[in-house]
């Protein structure tokens, strides 16, 4: 068989390793420079195919990838207003206009937003409010936040890809004559993607893109989008915005709209992004990614009810949209309708999703919807599917709740202990364990556990409140007051906290 055709076929079948090997053989054996009809030599074709294969191996959708480092979030000078008005910023978690569930029902993330039904790379960390929080949060195993996005995943993957090739990288970028490649648009596009995705060398990628767009006389929208992507990675958001806008003028593309919205979100202008999405929807009616973008923004701004509306719109267009189903499902669960949530999660199971998270959610929904026959089997399945210790810890934690629900406090105690054995940073488990210890009358243990919990997760109100109550009981009013204040900070509307503070203030006034 013609080796190039074989390589091409491997590429089409997504067997990239084999394809890259075949191309390497071709490149070594055939320096014959016979030009085919298209004006390309065989070796050029093989070279281009290999770059594409290598790119595909590590390709991730750039729209989804977003990781803010500590430096970017704290030393951010791009935000227009340092103190934004309510409802115009993603930084202020407490600015919901109703519809947001209270933390008494729905657990919150470190930034004080209710947990969502779906994680993407950009939602993983959340934005910490203060420097202290930002530095503290990476200590827990879940959210290792890099110092800057330039030192994050991109680089780690880049160096790893180099390590896999013992004879050095496939293309030596420093010896590449970029201007020469920029003249050949067909090669240049593949080369650009290789540099951008495989090598993660944004600066060289930008150089190539700049030369190529010049060669195309600024008429190729594709190159403008790529330049925008490079600027975004380099943190030059306003420049990126210009490139994307200019590309949109030439060619109306959904991708470009999504990139532009990403820029606005990074600049902390959710309302501009919403407008952009809505304009996009006028031109591309019913486009799922745009609707989903709107829903995500509403969700991040803590406006859960309108987020749910948009997720429903998404499902009208695409009834297998995993993110929409998962988010609506979790909304129902936390608004006290586990039966309906169960239907959504069952739908996901029917669609072929088969992982630890889904079975854990099914188990919880079954339990709270009183379908006890399925509960334990779901949790068993979830445990067997857990990929790492943290996932197993979360499943044990939820099983602990089932045990509390059926009144088997011994089992609950063991479950929470197992949670901590799998994940030593599980603040919720520390708190619940403390409550169980209190029931047994072990005040000192409970106090220690609560202190651990509140230092691990200062954003949760439960450990603070419990600590306040406990200290109040043993007569340590000063500590109780301090803890109650922290609890109030985390959850201002909590009635019991307010009562406790009032009581304590009366005590202090009497002294």
């Amino acid at each position, binding site marked *: 068989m013609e080796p190039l055709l074989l390589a091409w076929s491997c590429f089409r079948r997504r067997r990239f390793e084999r394809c890259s090997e075949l191309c390497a053989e071709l490149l070594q054996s055939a320096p014959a420079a016979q030009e085919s009809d298209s004006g390309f030599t065989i070796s050029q074709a093989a070279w281009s195919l290999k770059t594409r294969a290598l790119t595909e191996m590590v390709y*991730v959708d750039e729209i989804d990838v977003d990781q803010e480092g500590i430096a970017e979030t704290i030393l951010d000078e791009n935000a227009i207003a340092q103190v934004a008005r309510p409802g115009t910023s993603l930084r202020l978690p407490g600015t919901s206009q109703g519809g947001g569930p209270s933390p008494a*029902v729905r657990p919150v993330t470190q930034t004080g937003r209710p947990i969502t*039904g779906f994680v993407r790379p950009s939602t993983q960390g959340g934005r910490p409010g203060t420097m202290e929080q930002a530095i503290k949060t990476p200590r827990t195993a879940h959210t290792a936040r890099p110092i800057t996005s330039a030192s994050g995943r991109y680089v780690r993957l880049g160096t790893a890809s180099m390590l896999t090739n013992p004879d050095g990288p496939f293309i030596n970028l420093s010896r590449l004559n970029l201007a020469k490649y920029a003249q050949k648009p067909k090669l240049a596009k593949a080369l650009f993607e290789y540099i951008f995705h495989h090598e993660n060398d944004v600066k060289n990628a930008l150089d190539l893109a700049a030369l190529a767009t010049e060669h195309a006389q600024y008429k190729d929208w594709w190159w403008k989008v790529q330049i925008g992507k490079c600027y975004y990675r380099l943190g030059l958001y306003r420049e990126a915005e210009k490139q994307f806008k200019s590309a949109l003028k030439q060619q109306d593309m959904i991708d470009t709209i999504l990139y532009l919205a990403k820029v606005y979100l990074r600049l902390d202008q959710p309302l501009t992004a919403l407008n952009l999405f809505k304009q996009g929807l006028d031109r591309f009616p019913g486009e799922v990614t745009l609707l989903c973008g709107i829903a995500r923004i509403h969700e991040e701004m803590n406006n859960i009810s309108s987020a749910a509306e948009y997720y429903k719109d998404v499902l009208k267009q695409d009834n297998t949209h995993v993110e929409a189903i*998962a988010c609506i499902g979790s909304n129902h669960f936390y608004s006290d309708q586990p039966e309906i949530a169960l239907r959504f999660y069952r739908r996901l199971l029917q669609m072929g999703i088969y992982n630890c998270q889904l079975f854990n959610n099914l188990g919880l929904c079954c339990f709270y919807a009183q379908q006890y026959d399925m509960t334990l089997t779901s949790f068993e399945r979830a445990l067997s599917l857990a990929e790492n210790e943290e996932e197993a810890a979360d499943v044990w934690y939820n099983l602990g709740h089932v045990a509390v629900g059926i009144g088997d406090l011994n089992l609950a105690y063991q479950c929470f202990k197992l949670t901590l054995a799998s994940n030593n940073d599980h603040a919720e488990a520390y708190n619940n364990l403390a*409550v169980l210890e209190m029931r047994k009358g072990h005040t000192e243990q409970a106090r220690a556990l609560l202190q651990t919990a509140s230092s691990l997760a200062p954003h949760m109100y439960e450990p603070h409140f419990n600590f306040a109550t406990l200290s109040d009981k043993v007569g340590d009013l000063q500590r109780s007051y301090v803890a109650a204040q922290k609890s109030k900070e985390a959850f201002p509307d909590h009635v019991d906290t307010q009562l406790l503070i009032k009581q304590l203030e009366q005590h202090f006034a009497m002294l």
Partner: protein
Amino acid sequence: MPEARSALREVLPKRGQLSVEDVATLVLCKPKLLPLKSVTLEKLEKMQRAAQETVRRQEMAQREEPQQ
């Protein structure tokens, strides 16, 4: 049956004091639905694991070489 029902009439005191002691109970953290992972995130994690595995294997190989 009517006699039986009258025999089991409920008692609702209309007079006198009704006292309920409100004890502040400790709060449990809530059960946590686990968020599903997006395809991109799964792929990133898979790639990261694979990369770590390669690095580990290469380091092992390097460590074995000087011994020979």
